[in-house]
């Protein structure tokens, strides 16, 4: 395995930011750490970078322990949220900085700087100072600077969050294609699930210092392991199955009854079907509380036995409004059984 985290724990005073996290990362992949603010994703990235030291656990690269090795000796490229371009240096000087510290020869250095400038398409900006560039350009310089010394791993800490929406969209694609071109193993921290789904080969969902699930975008969407993942990636109806017999959700109850912990199920809004009449045996009736037309779908909030379901109906369902009673059905294959949460250090 290329990069391994084993039982990493990091505390800041009384707060445990990262709790017994274990993770394997394959070489060449683009991995996203995603989660709400305070989930420990940035701390984890900084631990990998060597900017923080773990209280417990090891970080291994090619099986060699990195713990205790200072950041400057790891050769991991890092891009910060605030770009952190050195304001007293030109674009070219910024890019050359990591090469100078590693004593590249003059010729190799200037060739590499030119190569990097070309890579991020800033050839004509080499002699400008950072503050003369736009936000997007600054972030591209930061990328070039991090990639110049041929880092073993590229770490991106919310690289796009300081940019406006349009530039962000552009840079998503650009960073991804850059990474494929260079082939460097990349870890990006983001709180934006769309960004993670668009860019990452593997997504690591973190919550409260613990990994909730690791997987591809498709896996996380189609098979969320926990309630948190289900709600964080895309939209998900969480239904608490009542005990006893009968009721609207009777057909969804697992065989052999509910074993306390697993009475939660998740259903994606687009998987709930609107059936005409009561032709299917497992259909149930819900009453519309709210209906919002969104263009390609109409999002309807339906009340069923005191619970609320979000249902997405294709196209413009203009003939239904609040008060309308709908006959709905949840196909068994659309039901996700969810754990309330994942215990720290638990295996996948």
């Amino acid at each position, binding site marked *: 395995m290329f990069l391994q985290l084993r039982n990493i724990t990091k505390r800041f005073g009384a707060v445990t930011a990262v709790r017994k996290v274990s993770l394997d990362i394959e070489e060449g992949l683009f991995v996203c750490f995603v989660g709400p603010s305070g989930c420990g994703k940035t701390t984890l990235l900084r631990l990998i970078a060597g900017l923080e030291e773990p209280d417990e656990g090891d970080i291994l690269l090619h099986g060699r322990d990195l*713990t205790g090795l200072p950041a*400057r000796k790891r050769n991991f490229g890092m891009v910060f949220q605030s770009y952190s371009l*050195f304001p007293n240096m030109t674009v070219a000087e910024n890019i050359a900085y990591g090469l100078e510290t590693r004593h590249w020869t003059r010729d190799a250095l200037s060739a590499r700087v030119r190569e990097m400038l070309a890579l991020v398409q800033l050839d004509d900006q080499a002699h400008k100072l950072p503050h003369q560039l736009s936000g997007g350009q600054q972030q591209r310089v930061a990328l070039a600077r991090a990639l110049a010394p041929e880092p073993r791993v590229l770490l991106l800490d919310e690289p796009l969050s300081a940019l406006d929406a349009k530039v962000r969209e552009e840079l998503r694609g650009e960073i991804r294609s850059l990474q494929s071109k260079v082939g460097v193993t990349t870890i990006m921290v983001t709180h934006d699930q769309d960004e993670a789904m668009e860019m990452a080969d593997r997504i690591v969902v973190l919550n409260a210092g613990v990994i909730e699930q690791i997987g591809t975008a498709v896996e996380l969407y189609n098979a969320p392991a926990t309630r948190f993942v289900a709600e964080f990636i895309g939209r998900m109806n969480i239904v608490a199955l009542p005990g006893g017999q009968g009721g609207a959700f009777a057909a969804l109850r697992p065989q052999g009854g509910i074993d306390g912990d697993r009475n939660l199920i998740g259903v994606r809004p687009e998987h709930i079907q609107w059936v005409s009449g009561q032709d299917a045996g497992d259909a149930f009736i819900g009453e519309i509380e709210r209906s919002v037309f969104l263009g390609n779908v109409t999002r309807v909030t339906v009340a069923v036995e005191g619970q609320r379901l979000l249902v997405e109906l294709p196209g413009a369902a203009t003939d239904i409004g609040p008060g309308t009673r709908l006959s709905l059905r949840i196909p068994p294959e659309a039901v996700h059984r969810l754990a309330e949460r994942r215990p720290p250090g638990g295996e996948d």
Partner: protein
Amino acid sequence: MVALWSAVRRRSFDSDRLVAVALALIVAVPLVVFVLLPLAAILERSFATPDGFGLDNYARYFSNDTFVGIIWNSLSVSATTTAITIVLAFWFAYALHRSAMRFKQVFRLIALIPLFAPSLVQALGILFLFGRNGLINRTFDLGIDIYGFWGIVISDVFYSFPHAFLILSAALAVADARIYESAEMLGAKGARVFRTVTLPATKYGLMSATFVVFTIVMTDFGNAMVIGGDFNVLATEIYNQVSGQANFEMGAVVGMILLIPAALAVIVEKWVMRRQVAVIGERSQPLSIRPHRRFDLAMLAYAAFVCACILMVVGMVFYASFVTLWPWNMAPSLKHYTFDVQNGIEPLWTSIWVSLMAAGIGMVFVVGGAIVVDRFRNPLTRALYFLSILPAAVPGMVLGLGYILAFNDPANPIYVIYGTIVILAICNVYHYHAQGFLIATTSVKQISGTFDEASKCLGAGLLRSLRKITVPIIMPSIISIGVFFFMRSMVTLSAVIFLVTPKTQLAAVSVLLIDDSGNHNQAAAFSVCIMFIVAMAVVALHFLMRLLGRRGTGLAQ
């Protein structure tokens, strides 16, 4: 056991840790040697008796009515001066910030002139006006006796005015227009708005200015020496005891007494600073000044009057330096600028060298200290912070006496530089260490910590990060700190008066000695030269900043 083992394992050798500790030591050791040691020496000496230690010296001091009277003198001079200065400076700052009068920039500049002069120049100017042979006394034959209490008070009002003005100016410059508008909407008129809105908002500024001025006056030596006559204060008494009678024990006792008000002032100022923060919120609106003809005219008249007084005092010194022999031969002459006195112009050069040296040492050690304290958090840094701002509570006379007691001893390794200009430069650096340190800290704090992290990730060690990033970014501040130390060193008198030798005579000290010998015109000429050099330094700073500004814009991220 397991935890211990893993802790040991994690302590893999990192040269950056070593560098950080080494840098901390490089700034900490001189602070201990040049601040703590002298203070300890004074403390020790004040308790020293022929047979060990005891309170004998203090008992002797407080049983002597003359000595107790001196404390009273100091307190009454300081209180009176403070009251007058604060009122004058408050209205001056008010005129500048809250009226629509004209010539604000000129007034501001004039108000700061006393900062460019040694503390005895004000007294010199007053004497040329109101002294026995002063212009006004002679012209109108008024028989005013300015020597003593009122002489010191008036001189020190001029001396402390810019300090109070700067603090009050800062307090009045920020104001939330919304509060003033609300007060007006509720029907409050001028005086009421002033009492209920303006004064409370500047309360902390007023307190801070009060304590700063009180301390400045309490510890001022030059003016009291020149114009005090037989009226002794603590600062002159410490000089009399040490230089006049070589009574170091008594000098140390006076020094200890002098430490109290200064230390108190620093503590109160810190307390005030912590409370000051919340005056202006994020959504505050800046106050826009609307013209009021009569108010503006009154303020203009007032500001012009204050500036005229300042210019008059400085102008008298300037004038006197071009007069053949005050007051008997008022024919214009340039002879005082030939410096036909013992040592000639030498002391001026010595002052410049000492000031340049102090600027150099200050830039390295004070900025280094600020970086160490702000950037390398380790157990040493808290102690280092305290040591760095401690000199704010130590009056110059006390520090100077401490240097004698601690270093005038062939057994002490520092004795090698004792009596040279090096000790003078070092003394000036540590005398004004706290102020320089605070300027440096402010600017170091403005640099985002991620620059260091980015540099680390790019493979740079601590020293390279400092050299390539931190230092270049704060270069403008480093230069202003250098100029600050240069200016203070050019005009300071109190600490170095104990340390100069005939060979290392400083200009400010020369002014005192030459004036004392009766050659007032020569003293005036020396003063003018000092003021001129300090003014040049300020101008040089201004142009350097503009030069640096081209590349330095947008530095704060």
